């Protein structure tokens, strides 16, 4: 089995607030293998984006991060900011949610893509303006190539255009081009299609799939859309209130969901054939500063038992077809629910 390129071990992110410490991310373990697409699914406020930001070391103070973020076995949380900067955008690139506000309105799109190349010395040469014209020309050629690749038509003409002159889909493509410029091994996509029309969404997803196949870039896709994740990912982790509540291969999680939250999310996906009414999950994500004891999902859970409000539950392997079925990456389908332990008291396991 191949080594994971990125591994999160016991990752915990705490923000001190006036009302006490908030655990935005609580003991998350994840592994990303080369070429894999991992979906991180959950409602807003579940800590998904925080996980992505922590990988890049971009958790703003006073947030604290404990645990390990291993890139090729190297712990990124131990690196200095200077060392991290060399990885950001080059080894690990991020694609943000809202393309219009993420592109800098004051600079031409082409220049913003070129900046990525310059920051990581992708084209070596003199850096002092105006003596770097040859270098700039070479960088521009690479930018045009990337713009072409992400499907921005007439890149030469659009190189000097500003973000507001682009449509939403084009802005998202430009953002992907910024991420792709340095050929990163890992793409972190934070709800890249949420701000877009459905048709454009499909195009962007197809583009990311192509990037995954042609460049072999591993992708972590953060989304609240389990349907999208089912379509696009080969591995899914469902997060709730800062914890992973279910994780496994896409088929395992979608076809045999174990956690009531995963089941609830699945019931929220419209089905065009059956046209059954949607069944929303009642309530909303709890305030992370005042988490209920026991299972965080308990107050919203349709299968609530009194023991759910007590103790802490580990991720348990799911028994499938009579045995613990291994995922291709060597991981098993796991869920964090009392049902898997047969409603025994938590002390028992």
């Amino acid at each position: 089995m191949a080594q994971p390129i990125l591994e999160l071990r016991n990752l915990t992110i705490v923000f001190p607030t006036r009302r006490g410490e908030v655990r935005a991310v609580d003991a998350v373990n994840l592994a990303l293998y080369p070429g894999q697409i991992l979906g991180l699914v959950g409602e807003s406020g579940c800590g998904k984006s925080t996980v992505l930001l922590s990988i890049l070391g971009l958790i703003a103070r006073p947030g604290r991060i404990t645990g390990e973020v291993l890139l090729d076995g190297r712990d990124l949380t131990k690196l200095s900011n200077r060392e991290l900067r060399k990885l950001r955008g080059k080894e690990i690139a991020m694609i943000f949610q809202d393309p219009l506000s993420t592109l800098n309105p004051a600079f031409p799109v082409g220049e913003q893509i070129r900046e990525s190349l310059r920051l990581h010395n992708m084209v070596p040469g003199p850096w002092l303006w105006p003596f770097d014209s040859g270098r700039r020309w070479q960088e521009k050629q690479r930018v045009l190539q990337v713009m072409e690749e992400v499907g921005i038509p007439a890149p030469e003409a659009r190189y000097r255009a500003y973000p507001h002159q682009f449509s939403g889909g084009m802005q998202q493509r430009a953002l992907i081009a910024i991420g792709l410029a340095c050929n990163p091994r890992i793409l972190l996509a934070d709800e890249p299609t949420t701000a877009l029309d459905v048709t454009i969404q499909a195009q962007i997803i197809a583009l990311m799939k192509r990037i995954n196949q042609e460049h072999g870039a591993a992708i972590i896709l953060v989304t609240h859309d389990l349907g999208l994740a089912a379509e696009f990912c080969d591995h899914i982790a469902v997060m709730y209130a800062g914890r992973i509540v279910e994780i496994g291969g896409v088929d395992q999680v979608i076809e045999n969901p174990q956690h009531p939250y995963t089941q609830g999310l699945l019931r929220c996906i419209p089905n065009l054939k059956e046209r059954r009414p949607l069944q929303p999950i009642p309530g909303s994500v709890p305030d992370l500063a005042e988490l209920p004891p026991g299972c965080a999902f308990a107050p919203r859970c349709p299968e609530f038992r009194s023991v759910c409000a007590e103790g802490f539950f580990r991720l348990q392997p799911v028994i499938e077809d009579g045995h613990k079925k291994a995922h291709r990456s060597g991981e098993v389908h796991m869920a964090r629910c009392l049902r898997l332990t047969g409603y025994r008291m938590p002390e028992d396991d």
Partner: protein
Amino acid sequence: MRLVKILERLLAAIPIMVGVAVIVFLFMRLTPGDPVDIMMGQGGMVTAGEIERLRSEFNLDKPLHEQLALFLFGLLRGDMGNSFTKQRPVAQLIAERLPATIELALGAMVFGLLVAFPIGIVSAVRQNSLTDRLSMAGAFLGISMPPFWLGILLILIFSVHLKWLPVQGRIGADVHLTTVTGFYVLDSILTGNREALISSLRHLALPSVTLGAAVAAIVARVLRSSMLECLRSDYVKLARAKGASEFSAVAKHALRNALIPTVTVVGLQVGVLLGGNMIVEAVFGWPGLGRLVVDAIFARDFPLVQGAVMIYAFTFVAANLIVDVLYTYLNPKIEM
């Protein structure tokens, strides 16, 4: 393309200037107090004949609309008439004083921006830190402190007690400087006069600080708040995620966008600098336009006041035009 737009804007400024001319003309004549009476009051014994002669000399005996027409057509030819009190062409009087005023305004602006930019940026980056709180308290002080008092305070400290800087004037009495443009700092550089350069800069220092303190305070506050907004933006997050240094994220990505509202305020400060200079010029004995205008207003010297106001109005219009042009460079969403 941009040049055409600038020309268009310049043409659009003409009706504004005409409007200013008409208003200042009417307001001067609506103000109680007759210029000839005021002049004669100082002279003592005068006959009715002499008064009549002066009135016709100043065209004050003509009907109002004729006087206005004379004034406007004079402006078209660049002729602002003769000063009642000084018996010399207004244009000449203003030309003598204007360089001093502009030099002071520029000095104040340079001081204001040099102080405001580091303070505004650092307080935004270190929001709520001690630096931030002290800077903002200082800015509040800068806005609240009346310039005449600040000026006197500075003179007391730096001129009287420490004896570092001169009390008043534009240049030392013992320093010889050949006038080329009327801007003493520029003239000293042009003529290669080191001694005059140092002397004129030393004289410029305190008035610039006095006049520029308010500018520094206002610009620092605006810059801080717009920097705070820009630093929280997604594009700064993207810059960091791309691998940009913290310096580049702040100084390039955030500052560039924070400049947009700041430039507007800086443009408006030009008006403050022109208005405020009357007081500062009085405190520091600065031979600028401000004092000339104040004297002219008290003497009801119609042509001189009108001429000076026209210059003020023109400067303000020009400053706004410059801001608008800068805007198109700073904010690509705006076309002129």
